[in-house]
C-alpha cells in the first residue's frame, strides 16, 4: 500500500482528456497522497436520500437565520435595563443566550451535516517522512555552522584582547537594558519606620503619638456597653481612612466574653508575657487577619469560643490566646492591648506586639 503511488505514472496535466478530478488526483500524487476512496454517499444522482439530507441542511440554515433575527430583535427591543423585582429585563440575558445559541448551533450543525452527509466519503493516505534531513544535507549545514563559529571564534582566540573586551562590554549593557525594566518595580518593604509588615493603624505614631481609638466602620468610637455579652464586633483604628483597605492589616475583632470564659481567657493571657494585661474587663480584641494567608478569620463560634477562617479553615481558640487548634495556621492571632479612655471609649494601649497577618521569612 505504501508504494502504490510510485507505480502510477506521472500524468500530463495538459492532456485535454483528463477530468478535473484526474488533475486533483495528480496534484495529490505529487504531495505523496493516494486518494483511496472518494465516493458519493448516495446511490445515483438526485436520489431521494440525498434530497432529504439537502432539505434538512437547508432547514438548519433557515433556523439559524430565524434565530439570528430573533437575537437581534431581543437585543434591540427587549427591555434590558435593570429594575428591582420580577421584570421582563430579568430574561434579557437568557433570551440573548438561547437565541444566539440556536443560531450558532443551526449554522454549526448545517455545516457538519453538509460535511458528513453530503460530501463524498474519503479515505486518503499521505506518506510521512520520519527522521531528519538526508545525511548529506546535515553534513553541509553542520559544516556551514561550524565554519561560521570558527570564523568568529578564531578571531577571538587570535585576538585575546577582544575576548575580554566583549565580556566587559556586553555584560553591563545587558544589565543596563534589564535595570530600568525591573528596577522601577522594586520596593523596599523595610523602608518605613516601623516597616509596614510590623505595624498597623493602631500604632500611636499614626495618631500624633496618642493611643488610637477603636471605631466602627463609620468612624464612631465604641463604649463597652455597645457590645453585649457573648457578642463581637469588627473594629478599625480610629484614624483617617482607618476602615479602608489602606489599613488592610488593621481590622480587629472585639469580643465581649461571658464571665467564666473571660476568667479563663484572662488567666491564659496573663500567663503569657506578650499578652499580659491586654484584656479590659471581659473584653478581648484579636487581629482579624488570619496568620495563615491573610483572610479575615471572621466566623465566630460563640459556643465553642473558636474563630474560624473561611478560606482555609484554620481554627483559633479564643480562650487560649487564640492559639491555632486545627488547620494550616501555625501562629496565634495577635492580641490588641485594650483599655478605656477618659471619655469611656475603647482605645488600643499600643500597637500589636506580635506581627499581624500572614507569616514571612524575616518575622522575628
Amino acid at each position: 500500500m505504501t508504494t502504490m503511488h510510485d507505480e502510477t505514472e506521472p500524468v500530463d496535466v495538459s492532456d485535454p482528456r483528463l477530468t478535473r478530478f484526474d488533475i486533483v488526483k495528480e496534484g495529490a500524487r505529487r504531495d505523496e497522497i493516494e486518494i483511496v476512496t472518494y465516493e458519493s454517499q448516495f446511490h445515483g444522482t438526485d436520489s431521494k436520500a440525498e434530497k432529504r439530507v439537502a432539505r434538512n441542511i437547508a432547514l438548519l440554515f433557515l433556523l439559524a437565520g430565524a434565530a439570528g433575527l430573533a437575537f437581534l430583535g431581543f437585543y434591540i427591543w427587549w427591555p434590558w435595563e435593570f429594575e428591582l423585582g420580577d421584570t421582563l429585563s430579568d430574561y434579557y440575558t437568557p433570551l440573548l443566550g438561547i437565541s444566539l445559541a440556536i443560531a450558532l448551533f443551526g449554522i454549526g450543525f448545517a455545516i457538519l451535516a453538509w460535511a458528513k452527509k453530503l460530501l463524498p466519503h474519503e479515505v486518503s493516505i499521505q506518506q510521512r517522512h520520519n527522521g531528519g534531513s538526508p545525511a548529506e544535507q546535515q553534513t553541509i549545514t553542520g559544516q556551514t555552522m561550524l565554519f561560521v563559529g570558527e570564523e568568529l571564534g578564531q578571531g577571538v582566540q587570535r585576538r585575546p584582547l577582544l575576548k575580554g573586551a566583549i565580556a566587559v562590554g556586553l555584560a553591563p549593557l545587558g544589565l543596563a537594558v534589564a535595570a530600568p525594566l525591573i528596577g522601577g518595580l522594586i520596593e523596599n518593604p523595610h523602608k518605613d519606620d516601623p516597616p509596614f509588615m510590623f505595624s498597623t493603624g493602631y500604632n500611636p505614631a499614626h495618631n500624633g503619638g496618642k493611643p488610637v481609638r477603636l471605631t466602627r466602620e463609620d468612624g464612631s468610637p465604641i463604649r463597652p456597653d455597645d457590645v453585649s455579652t457573648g457578642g463581637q464586633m469588627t473594629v478599625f483604628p480610629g484614624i483617617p481612612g482607618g476602615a479602608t483597605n489602606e489599613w488592610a492589616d488593621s481590622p480587629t475583632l472585639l469580643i465581649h466574653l461571658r464571665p467564666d470564659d473571660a476568667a479563663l481567657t484572662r488567666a491564659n493571657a496573663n500567663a503569657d508575657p506578650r499578652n499580659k494585661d491586654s484584656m479590659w474587663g471581659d473584653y478581648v480584641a484579636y487581629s482579624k487577619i488570619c496568620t495563615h494567608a491573610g483572610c479575615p478569620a471572621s466566623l465566630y463560634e460563640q459556643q465553642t469560643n473558636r474563630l474560624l477562617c473561611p478560606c482555609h479553615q484554620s481554627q483559633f481558640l479564643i480562650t487560649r490566646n487564640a492559639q491555632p487548634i486545627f488547620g494550616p495556621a501555625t501562629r496565634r492571632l495577635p492580641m490588641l492591648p485594650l483599655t478605656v479612655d477618659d471619655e469611656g471609649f475603647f482605645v488600643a494601649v499600643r500597637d500589636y506586639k506580635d506581627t499581624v497577618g500572614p507569616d514571612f521569612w524575616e518575622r522575628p
Partner: protein
Amino acid sequence: MKRRKVDLAQAPVTFAKGVDERYKAATPLRGLLNKVFPDHWSFLLGEIALFSFIILLLTGTFLTLFFDPSMKEVVYDGAYPALRGVPMSAAYESTLRLSFEVRGGLFLRQMHHWAALLFVAAIVVHMARIFFTGAFRKPREANWAIGVLLFLLGFLAGFTGYSLPDDGLSGTGLRIASAIMLSIPVAGTWISASIFGGEFPGHLIIGRFYIAHVLLIPAALLALISIHVGLVFVQKHTQWPGPGRTNTNVVGERMFPRYALKQGGFFMAVFGTVALMAGLFQINPIWLFGPYRASEVSSASQPDWYVMFMDGLVRLMPNWQIYIPIGEGYSIPPLFWPAVVGLGALTTIPMFYPWIEARRTKDKSIHNLLQRPRDNPERTGIGAMAFTFFIVATLSGGNDVIADKFHISLNAMTWAGRIGLLIGPPLAYFISVRICLGLQQHDRQVLAHGVETGIIRRLPNGQFIEVHQPLGPVDDHGHPIPLEYGGWVVPKKMNRVGALAPAIKGFFFPVEKPAEAPVSPGMPPVTAAEEREEITSGR
C-alpha cells in the same frame, strides 16, 4: 471605437495568476489544500481549547472598552440599588456598570468567564488524551512541554482575570496571592512589596494585573499556540493503529473540502455552547459579593475550578513551620510548600515526562501511531495517579461546601483529604494497572480463541463447551490460528462482527454497531471473513 471585452469568467484565473507570479503560492497552497488529517473524536479536544481562546479574544476585547482598571475610590451611584452610596474602586464600579448599564454587557461578561473555564477544561482533557495515548513520544516531546506551559499560562490568565473586578472574592484571592508571595524564603517581602507597589493592597495591583491579563499573557498564549499548532502541522498528526495505517503514513481526509468544513461546524457548535451557558447559567455575580474589603469574607469563598486544587493543597497542608534560630530568627511558613513548591513542581515536572519515559524505556524510535491506554499499563497508572491527586486536591478546595451540604464535620473532611491525598494515588495506580492488564489479556484471548457466542454445546462425552467464533482462519482441526494484536479495538461480541442486524432503528444509533476503525468512513476494521464457519448450535 471597439469596446474592450471583459471576460468575467476569466477574472479569477487572471487574478490567481497575478498572485502566483508575485508570491509563488501555487505549490505550497496545493500542499495545504491536500494535507491529510487523521480523524477521531479525541483529536478534537484541543480544538475546543483553541476555539475557546478565539471566543476569549473576541469577548475580552469588548470588555476592555468598558472596564476601568483603576483602584481610585468612587461612590457607586448606578442602576443596582443595593450598592448605591457604597464606596468602591473604579474597577469594581465599572464592572457593575458593564453588567447593569451596558446593553448585552452582562451576556458578554458571562460568555468571557464561561469560555475561560472551558478553555482550561479543554486543555486538561486534551492533555489527558495526549498523555494516555502516548502522543507525546518522539518526535513530539517539545510540543508536549509547550502544552504544559500553555496550561500554566491559562492558569495565570484565569487568575489575573478573576482578580480584576476587585469584588469581595477577587480581593480575597489577591490577599492569598500576596500571602503566598510573602511565604517565599528570603525574598518574600521584597517580592510582594514589588508586585503590589508597597503594602497590600496598594493602588497599583489592578492596573498591573490588567496589563498582564490583556496584553502580556495573551501575547504569550498566542505565540505559543501558534507554535503548538504549527508543529502539529509540520510533524503531521498522530493516528490510531488500524488497517493500512503505519508509522510512515497518515490515513484520513484531505484538509479541503471535508475536514476544514467539519472544523468550521465544530467551532460554531463550541461557540453556541458557550453562548448558551452564558445566557442561562449565572457566573461570578460580583454585585452579590460587594467591593473588596480587607475585613470581610463570606463562607464558601471558592476560586475558579482550576485553582481549586491549589487551594485544596493549601487547606490540607499541616501547620508545619520551619524556624531558623539564627540572629533574630527566620521562618518558612507552611503556605510555602503547597503554593510555591507544589505549584512549581506540578507544572514543571510533567513538562519533562516524555524524556523521563524515553529514558526509562530506552526508546529512541519515532512514534506516529498512538497506543491504547491498556497497552502501556505503567503510563496509564501514572496518569491515573496524577488525576486522583488532582481530584482529591480539587475536592478539598471545596471541602467546606461539601461539609456544609452533606453535614460532615469540616475537620473530618480535612483529614479525609490528607489521607486521601497519600493513599488515593497509589491505589489508583494499582487498580488501573490491573485493569489494563486484564483488558490486554481479554483482547489476546479473543484473538486466540475467537468471540464468545453464548452457545453452549454438549459433547458426546458429556462435557459442555462454549462455541467460539474465530476471528480469522482456522487450522485443519478447526481451531483458530492465533491472530496478532494490532493495537486497536478487538470485536468481542457477535453483533460486532455482523452476526445480528442492529436491534433498534431510528433516531438513535443502534445499540450494537460494528466497531468503527479510527478512520472516518468506508474502511471497516475487521472485514468479516467470507467463508465464516457456520455456528453449529448445540441442539
